[in-house]
């Protein structure tokens, strides 16, 4: 199908974006790589009257270390991450995740910011950024704010980003040298959205332990009891019980419990090996 009629504007700088958004309504959408929004436009599932293309703004495609964070521009592509162009602050986790997103042609255009703003819960970056404790910087015409992933995303395909706001940076805290991670993903086919994905990060030097389960059509779920079990030095058996306990508190169909448990266990083992 072809999109509904629309107006395309190319923004030349971040200030220009903010200026264009000043009069924005619900019918204005920002487009970066277009890999999430493009199909919606073609299927007429999204019919914005106005598109603002932010993908030609150089400063939004850069990533640099700022203090203890890696500040990633929203228009950094999955391919840039896959190819190791970014300083590696996650011991290769981000590079590993990037490589499993869709296909190379999509990765060449798709952006981290776009993926987060689109908020498909099965998208790899949502769960990964949540697991890393990343924060998202937003700028609107009046002010700026910084949100955790769980604050940014309030439902499947739904965020709190206001019509006049744009993501300006994704800040990923640098993992300590002794930090470890585990990532386990099950999808129907290579490159698909995951039916189940678990990411576990253990960074004891920063007292940071996180575990996230991503599923289709549900927001990423934290695994508090598993995290608690991992935080305290303990036996594998207690961790397995903690995982089961976390799963019970989530709405999961009987036949899917084994799948999610397997993903979490495999990610946990990888992170604690």
């Amino acid at each position: 199908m072809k999109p509904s009629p629309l107006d395309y504007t190319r923004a030349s700088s971040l200030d220009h974006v903010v200026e264009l958004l000043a009069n924005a309504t619900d019918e204005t959408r920002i487009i970066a790589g277009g890999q999430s929004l493009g199909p919606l436009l073609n299927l007429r599932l999204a019919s914005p009257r106005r598109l603002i293309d932010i993908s030609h703004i150089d400063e939004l495609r850069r990533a640099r270390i700022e203090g203890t964070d890696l500040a990633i521009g929203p228009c950094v592509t999955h391919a840039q991450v896959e190819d190791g162009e970014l300083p590696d602050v996650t011991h290769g986790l981000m590079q590993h995740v990037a490589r499993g997103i869709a296909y190379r042609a999509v990765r060449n255009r798709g952006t981290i910011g776009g993926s987060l703003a689109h908020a498909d819960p099965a998208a790899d970056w949502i769960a990964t950024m949540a697991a890393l404790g990343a924060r998202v910087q937003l700028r609107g015409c009046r002010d700026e704010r910084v949100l955790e992933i769980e604050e940014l995303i309030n439902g499947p395909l739904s965020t709190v980003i206001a019509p006049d706001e744009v993501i300006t940076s994704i800040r990923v805290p640098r993992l300590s040298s002794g930090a470890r991670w585990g990532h386990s993903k099950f999808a129907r086919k290579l490159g698909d959205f995951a039916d189940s994905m678990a990411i576990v990060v253990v960074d004891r030097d920063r007292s940071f332990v996180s575990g996230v389960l991503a599923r289709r059509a549900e927001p990423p779920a934290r695994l508090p009891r598993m995290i608690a079990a991992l935080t305290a030095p303990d036996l594998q058996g207690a961790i397995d019980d903690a995982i089961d306990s976390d799963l019970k508190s989530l709405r999961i169909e009987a036949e899917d419990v084994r799948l999610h448990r397997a993903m979490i266990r495999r990610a946990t083992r990888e992170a604690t090996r």
Partner: protein
Amino acid sequence: MKTVNVRVNGATYARTIDDRLSLADFVREHCLLTGTHVGCEHGVCGACTLVLNGKPVRSCITLAAAADGADVRTVEGYDGDVVMAAIRRAFNLRHGLQCGFCTPGMLATAYDIVTRLPDAGRERIKAELGGNLCRCTGYLSIVQAIEDVLTEMRGNAGGSAARDQIIANEECMP
């Protein structure tokens, strides 16, 4: 409506277009280069894959307006390219195409694989082809064709011509 200037296969096309026109439809209808095919318009099947500013992309979910000022290479734009000639030869010898509809996208991806991943083994090749759907060949002949080209490029004779081609490509990029 917008006026865009897009360089396609080395020639500049200045056209006034509907803002919502895809890059795929632009090259097909405005440049009359129908080798790029549209198979799904949701970025999954890969039939529309062409090269934008040196990288393979889905032209069906790229707006032509977003390609204003960009450099595009379609399947029709590889005259004299030694690497593509080798890929085409290998596809023919290994029967890597049947109905031909997925082929231009497959060639774009094959080109990307052999130039970006010269050490790719069979499993990596299969993984990199995962974004190009084919219903006719069952893929194995395409994988074999790409393996053949990589082997040829690693060898001395065909290899250096191919490596020179890759360097020449990079020098042409904006």
